[in-house]
């Protein structure tokens, strides 16, 4: 029976290499998820950005900016809860340098221009 076992390889212990769970990254795919940049764009498309963010305008410069920054912070926390605000901003900024992102960003801006025809 020994031979048989060997033949089948039953005596050998099967080693299971535990794989580490992949670390979640803030990459292009995550940034382009529905709760990523598209969410910002829906806000941008809906009437007025400042009204949507409940910014008060003249005379409230500092509180308005605080509101804006808070908005970004919550948005970023929803998208990538792992990173602190400042760190997350750096990560995103870096992703923005990739070719794909550059092309998309260009397109987003072009879409807003008058007389834009979708290619």
């Amino acid at each position: 029976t020994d031979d048989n076992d060997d033949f089948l390889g039953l005596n050998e212990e099967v080693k299971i290499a535990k794989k580490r769970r992949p670390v979640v990254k803030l990459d292009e795919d995550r940034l382009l998820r529905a709760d990523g940049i598209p969410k910002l764009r829906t806000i941008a498309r809906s009437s007025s950005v400042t009204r949507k963010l409940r910014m008060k305008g003249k005379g409230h410069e500092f509180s308005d900016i605080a509101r804006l920054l808070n908005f970004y912070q919550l948005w970023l926390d929803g998208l990538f809860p792992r990173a602190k605000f400042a760190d997350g901003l750096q990560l995103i900024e870096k992703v923005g340098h990739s070719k794909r992102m550059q092309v998309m960003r260009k397109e987003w801006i072009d879409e807003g221009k008058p007389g834009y025809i979708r290619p």
Partner: protein
Amino acid sequence: FVKAQTVDPEVRAYVYSLVNALGGSSADEDGRYVLGDDALACLRDLKRWLKLYDEKLNRLDVARCLAEAKLVGGDILPILACWSEDGKNDRVKSRVALACLELLVPLTWPLETAGEMTVNHHRHTPYLQQAQVLYKAGILSWDNCSILRQIVRIGLPSIALPRDERTSRDDGIIKLVLYFLRNVAVIRQIPNLPNQGLDMVVSRSATIDAFVEQDVFALLLTMCSNIGDDFNLQDVVLLEILFNLIKGIDVSKLWLTKLQRADANISELTASLATEKAMERANKKTAPSRHNRFGTMIWVKREDHKTTALSGQENILENKALFNMDKSKKWNKPKTKDKDIQHTIHDFNRFEDITDSATEQLRNFVEEFLDSGFNPLFTHLRKAIEREAERLLDVNYRQFFYGVSWFLEAERTRRTKNKNEKHPANLAQAYTEAESYSLVAAVLNQETFILLNRYMQNALDSKEWQDLNACMRCFTQILLTVQEMAASPLEDDQEIAENIQNRIFYEETTHDRIVGILRGYKDQGFGYLDACTELSHTFLRMLERYSKENADLQIRSKRRARQKKKDAQKEQETQADEQIDEDDSEREDMQEAVKVSKERKFDFNRFANKFCTQQSINTFVAFLNYYKELNNEQLKRAHRFFYRAAFKQDSAVLLYRVDIIALFYRTVTGPDALSPAVPMTKEWTEFTKQLFKKLTRKLDERPELLVEMLFSKINSTTFYLEYGHDKQTTSAV
């Protein structure tokens, strides 16, 4: 026994026996030091040991043994101390003294923990550095005798001789004396090593005080002002001594009077107390008003019916909740480790504070040096650098430029001080004579500019940031000096200043280099950041004024003439058959055409636009990140730059980035805001307010910005975001 392992026991035995045979304090003569019978031979043997064992085998064993045997404190200094004045003509004693100096110089030689080090070096260097601090303490303050004066005495006979009568031995002695002084100036308590309680005794202030008391400054002045005549090869060592005395000392404090200094100290104290109080108040505002187990728990309701739970009473306050949510996150973005900026002896970015008396002494010395020694020394050095003389080391170049910048600043400070003082009428004549800038003329000539430009370019190309730092400081100071010259009441000065400015601003390569340096900043440390922002600030401002005054300013620009090249190529193609033999000359012409320099009218606006790019803004943002530690002058610099970018050059779009806006916001509100006691705070707050207003308006005008605020802008979209239409590009004809 541990000691036995560090050094070969046999070596130790030899060295110890020599030290013992040198002499000792005698019971017969009230404990005075008595030389051994063969003391001179012993000293020479020790020197031989240092040379033939340590130096030749590249170890530090003998030096270590000598440190452990306390040779300097126990023997050499007592021997020098008992070389009395009346024993001037005692040949044996003076030879013993010289032999002592010959030992002292290698023992005090600066040790650097850099470069190639063997196991032995690693083992001995920290111990020896500690020992050197003890040596210096002994040298500066020996009980009954001024050691430095004795050392100078050793050199005096050789110094007194006319240059052509000196033998090589005399030159050697002078060199020894100067290097010894250099070593004394260099030694300091190494920050990472255990403190021996000698900080004050070996501090810069103590060094300066001792140099004054024991007439070392007098010797230095004499040599500096006679360089070129009586002295020739000593310029580099003199530079090193000066550099190590002045590095890191704040020039602006030198010319304060005692009262002003006291005032400054007091107001500094009140200012820092006030900042502390403000901080405390800000903290109290947010501190919990109940005990720490009060157990408040709140939910932050977010969109999509999500909630976040937070504990702690302070979260009820506005904004605090989000801040704490952020703070509780454990993950940090891995940082690129800051490059280890070594605090080596060549570093000049470390700030040194000196005592009142030392400040006064140093000021007197600096004034006398400027009056007599500056021009000869720095002219001589410049010539040596141009010749690439062998005695120059790489660091000397850096020391040269740093020295120039420091002394130029000193001269400027002295002038403003003099100007503010009231002079009696009968002194007016003498005063105007001293008014001329000829005292520092040696570094305001074309040769120096060429040297500086070349060296700056070299440092930039080879990424030697410390060298570049020194160059930038030097250039800034030259610009500032020239600016003041232009405002001088003397016509000669004005004319010269006009001339210099014309030459500086004529070359476009200089303009491009300065823009390039500003754009190229990356992790070079705060000192570098400070220098490069100051240079671009000064340069830009002066150029603006100059080009306004001289509306027809011409500059020489080197540009690639592509069109010409193309034409030449076309021509070549069509006439290829006929012109085969003329090919060579054709190629030469083409090379000529590729790099052509032409003069064109200077357009300041175009130049200022070059400054407003994303990279240079990043540099200034990095600078502003230190806002808590910046002084008023530096804050002003940052303010002017951002103001120019946002409101004059229409590049505010580049500032619309969430991290930049967050930084600006932090500087004006919240517990970390700039203290209202800083004069610039008001202007800065006004600026941020305007910018925020502009941003809010922009967000409505161009909602795309909500996304683009996350990124550095792409060139092609910047213009659209700013103006709302694409740039009109004229098609090339």
